[in-house]
């Protein structure tokens, strides 16, 4: 398929922009942090760390990439080729998801070893990363600056943090109340790396995340076409 190799160029670009170096350092810090804390807290903290950072890193990294690519004026040349917007979205999302999964698995394996839970943790991270990367992309194309992106990002991401209140015990963990949010699904999958979870819960978590990811893809595509493709040819010096 034409355009498929661009996935590898996306990874190369992320390496050149220092994403992998930065995340190597971040992972090192998290691993140290988990080692020095009491063993009884490690599993809970690992779930929260994986949820809030490797899983959601795509949200901020895609914001940086979109602002960078737009600043470099790349889109004019990119979208007068057969490369389709859908391919662009998929390549960017999957390449950042790979970084998310590698980071999450590295932290998990370094602290807990090669457990059976590592697989489900990787799946939970991948699902969550896909959703957050697409959400971040939709926000980024609307933003004109890094500050603008951070300002808008709080509006768009905060509602999805509600399940964390349940996880922290601040509100009840009613499935009917929060179970329709993608991040509820994320927490269920990430927690299931450490505790037995009912199959129904896992299926619901996957379905909810899949539904929101499709929705986010549709929304990101619409936003990109509106804010980026409509400006192709205007030129950036």
């Amino acid at each position, binding site marked *: 398929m034409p355009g498929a190799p661009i996935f590898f160029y996306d990874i190369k670009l992320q390496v050149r*922009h220092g994403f992998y170096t930065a995340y190597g350092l971040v992972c090192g810090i998290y691993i140290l942090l988990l080692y020095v804390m009491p063993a009884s807290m490690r599993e809970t903290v690992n779930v929260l760390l994986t949820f809030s950072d490797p899983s959601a890193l795509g949200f901020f990294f895609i914001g940086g990439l979109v602002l960078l690519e737009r600043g470099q004026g790349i889109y*004019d*040349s990119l979208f007068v080729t057969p490369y389709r917007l859908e391919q662009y979205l998929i390549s960017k999302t999957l390449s950042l998801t790979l970084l998310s999964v590698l980071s999450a698995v590295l932290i998990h394996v370094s602290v807990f070893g090669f457990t059976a839970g590592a697989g489900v943790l990787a799946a939970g991270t991948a699902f969550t990363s896909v959703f957050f990367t697409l959400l971040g992309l939709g926000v980024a194309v609307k933003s004109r600056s890094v500050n603008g992106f951070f300002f808008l990002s709080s509006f768009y991401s905060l509602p999805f943090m509600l399940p964390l209140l349940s996880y922290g015990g601040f509100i009840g963990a009613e499935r009917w109340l929060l179970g329709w949010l993608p991040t509820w699904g994320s927490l269920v999958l990430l927690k299931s790396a450490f505790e037995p979870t009912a199959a129904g819960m896992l299926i619901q978590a996957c379905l909810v995340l899949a539904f929101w990811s499709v929705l986010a893809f549709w929304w990101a595509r619409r936003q990109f076409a509106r804010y980026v493709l409509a400006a192709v040819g205007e030129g950036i010096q």
Partner: protein
Amino acid sequence: MIEVNGLAYQYPGSSSQVLKGIDFHIAKGEIFGFLGPSGAGKSTTQNILIGALKGYTGSVRVLGLEIRGAGSRYYERIGVAFEFPNFYSRLTAIENLQLFRSLYSGTTEEPMKLLEAVGLSGHAKEKVAGFSKGMRMRLNLCRALLNRPEVLFLDEPTSGLDPVNAKMLKDIIRERSREGTTIVLTTHNMSAAEQLCNRVAFLVDGTIPLIDSPRALMVGLGSRKVVVEYRNQNGSMESAGFELDGIGSDPAFQKLLSSGTVETIHTREATLEQIFIEVTGRGLS
């Protein structure tokens, strides 16, 4: 190759049309230039032709396709070099070309051969971030040629180039034209248009008041005079004008020629810029 009839365009939210029903056709292998001042509608015309703006009225057919309905397959057949040569600055020149090459499914050029053609093969493994504007412009042409396009759209292709590299790019453009590539040039560089284009269209306020070959315009609208510069008896320069018609039997002209004092002889064709101002009442800058 390109057939445009009654093309009009109005940007969303704007109260007036930027293109007001223009007509033109461009033949296969032709180098066709759009000349006009900023805001005349040149970029809008190019953006419609490359399929970036679809909400136009009238008919725009390129390679037999109505552009309004052209999909991604259309981009397999055209090449576009925008005025501002933007690249992935953290990738090298060759990596940038390989990346863009990977987007095409048809036959493509070998990136290194293209770099050699524009004198950049020695910089192939350097990051584009360190390239000058001139180097980026040459790389920009390479990118537009990657897919062996049938139609090539070039926006100010010699902008920022020194005379040697400008000539190199013009030679490549002429060579592609000879091979059958149709080339659409958008510029306000009269000299480049005179040297390259088979025909030019003057675009002013969304209309095309004139389309013709640069030579026909320059000869047809210039004065039929010859100006001779010579040294007088004191050794200082003087000039004399002669009507071109009957110049062979003009005794004064023949006397001057045989005097051995002639330094230059020039016909007085109009320049494209003079013609543009005369036809449109507007300057190009």
